[in-house]
């Protein structure tokens, strides 16, 4: 177990390192350094002024010098400063992260509950009207692009009510910290939660259903039934536990991916989380911020993979880590 963790951590660090190198290269191959200096210096700037700005931000140095500088700061726990406001990247990320996390926690609870419950019901009542409806709905939401669902929800649930003076949901872009007012926090996040949850839940419905139907065909389920075990126990104690393995994998990977920001959902609802911050930073070629978000996002994926592998062993005793 310890060896497994050490090996995976080293691999993860290697992936993170490769990621930072790639982002650096993309930035320097592209128009990044020149456009940042020119934007900052302003419209009227002389070439000398542009060069001075470029020099202040170290943008006139060769790539490897800048990379060394970046790594040196990183080893001291500093992600650098953004080009436009000289804010520490760590504090930009610290401000955006709670928003992404709030979105993710609410949405993941919703999608896991909806997905697994509908999946179980579908598998237990195969080919019933309920099963057909739920698989059809799963297919619909699985096909639904996130921004389409988000805008449809805003259009139907916010706009139509708001023009008639009923403010059930606050305007998109509202963000209230949890510590300030939990009720308002939840109210502002309901539509983004529903959007992210419905789009994701479909995958879980299909996974749970398929995997439970597979397990129902196993010998040990027949044994359990012939022992006279109640159907409820067969479903929840014997079948569900084995069926959850693919669900857990999917959940780990989804959460890992979204830790770095639910880019589309945040953009649709104007929530200034990590994804939104990243899109803005990419638009301005603000390298330090982009690298900061990429590091968080990649670390999320890497850590999620390790956690999923460890969880495998807990859920399914037949799996051995090596």
């Amino acid at each position: 177990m310890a060896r497994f963790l050490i090996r995976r951590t080293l691999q993860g660090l290697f992936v993170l390192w490769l990621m930072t190198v790639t982002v650096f290269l993309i930035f320097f191959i592209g128009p990044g350094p020149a456009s940042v200096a020119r934007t900052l210096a302003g419209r009227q700037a002389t070439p000398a002024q542009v060069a001075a700005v470029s020099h202040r931000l170290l943008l006139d140095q060769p790539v490897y010098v800048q990379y060394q500088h970046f790594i040196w700061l990183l080893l001291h726990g500093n992600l650098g400063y953004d080009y436009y406001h000289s804010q520490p990247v760590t504090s930009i990320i610290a401000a955006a992260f709670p928003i992404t996390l709030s979105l993710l926690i609410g949405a993941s609870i919703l999608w896991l509950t909806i997905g697994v419950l509908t999946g179980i019901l579908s598998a237990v009542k195969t080919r019933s009207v309920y099963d057909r409806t739920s698989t059809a709905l799963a297919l619909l939401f699985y096909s639904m692009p996130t921004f389409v669902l988000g805008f449809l929800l805003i259009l139907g649930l916010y706009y139509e009510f708001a023009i008639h003076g009923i403010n059930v949901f606050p305007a998109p872009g509202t963000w209230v910290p949890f510590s300030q007012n939990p009720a308002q926090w939840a109210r502002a996040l309901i539509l983004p939660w529903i959007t992210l949850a419905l789009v994701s839940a479909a995958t879980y419905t299909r996974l749970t259903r398929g995997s439970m139907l597979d397990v129902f065909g196993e010998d040990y389920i027949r044994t359990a039934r012939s022992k006279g075990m109640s159907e409820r126990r067969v479903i929840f104690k014997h079948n569900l536990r084995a069926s959850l393995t693919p669900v857990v994998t999917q959940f780990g990977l989804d959460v890992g991916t979204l830790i770095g920001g639910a880019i589309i959902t945040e953009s649709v609802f104007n929530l200034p989380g990590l994804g939104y911050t990243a899109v803005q930073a990419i638009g301005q070629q603000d390298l330090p911020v982009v690298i900061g978000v990429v590091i968080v996002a990649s670390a999320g994926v890497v850590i999620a993979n390790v956690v999923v592998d460890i969880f495998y062993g807990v859920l399914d005793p037949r799996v051995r880590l090596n």
Partner: protein
Amino acid sequence: MTYNYSDLETVGELPAEPVLAAPEAEAAKKIEGHSPWRLAMDRLRRDRAAMIALGVIIIVLVAIFAPVFAVITGHGVYEQFRGPAPPIGLTPTGQPVGPTSAFLLGTDDQGRDIMVRIAYGARVSLFVGVVATGITVGIGLVVGLAAGFFGGIVDSVLARLMDWLLAIPFLLFAISLASVVLVHPIGPIGPGLPVVIIVLGVLTWATVGRLVRGQVLSIREKEYIEAARALGAGPWRIMFIDILPNLLAQLIVYATLLIPLTIVAEASLSFLGVGIPAPTADWGQMISAASSIYLYGPWWYLLFPSLALLITTLAFNIFGDSVRDAFDPRGDLFV
């Protein structure tokens, strides 16, 4: 039973017991004639949902002939109907016009016909969906085959590469890459279609590669591969003649299900402003443009491109599901 003379002449062709043997012979012929492909095609043809989805896909394919829409309505894809001659596509205050008999799906913020633009947008979506998926599956297939078949150092390197690609936060990277090219083309890779196709094709093949590698690892231990090797077949022959055909069914299923995902990814890139640039008609870009004004009234500008995108992905997904059911022997267990 006796035969007269005339019977004897044809006895070679006659079955001994014609009445009883006929269904048997037919059954034997049926089993003999059904390759896995034929079985899959038959199952696909019997699947009503698949036929419906195929119908919708054909409708979308018709949109490839989008100029027909332009000719019938008489509205060009870039034509702005700012008046004063009718039809007028912008209100006196410069707002889009809702669905009318002149503009069935309304106009956009530039006074252009949304229906014609949706038809043209279908071309971009389908083109990117099919071509980028093709690239993804192609690269994944070649890399997966090489990794699985050669093993050793080749496999280690390629498997690491795939792990690395899978750990990439996809959308974040796609936006970074595409945004760079938007300002500063790299060689022939300019903004718009080329960069979108390359980003979507090149960043997503690792999943296919891993799938193929796993299959190859198990297939290469089979006896018929050993037989091929014993007969003196070289590595290329074994890879492409003996192993590849066994992967095709799975690859086709995967590719069909990948197309809608690619279409959504393209629309997402355009929605975030780094995909297909204006004024080319594109669904993601139309939704993005609509998103800044729809709360002031023109809901049709947001709704119709969204529905077009949704119907397309839904049709491809239903079709992909049916294709999978047709190829998967346990198919009827699933959706």
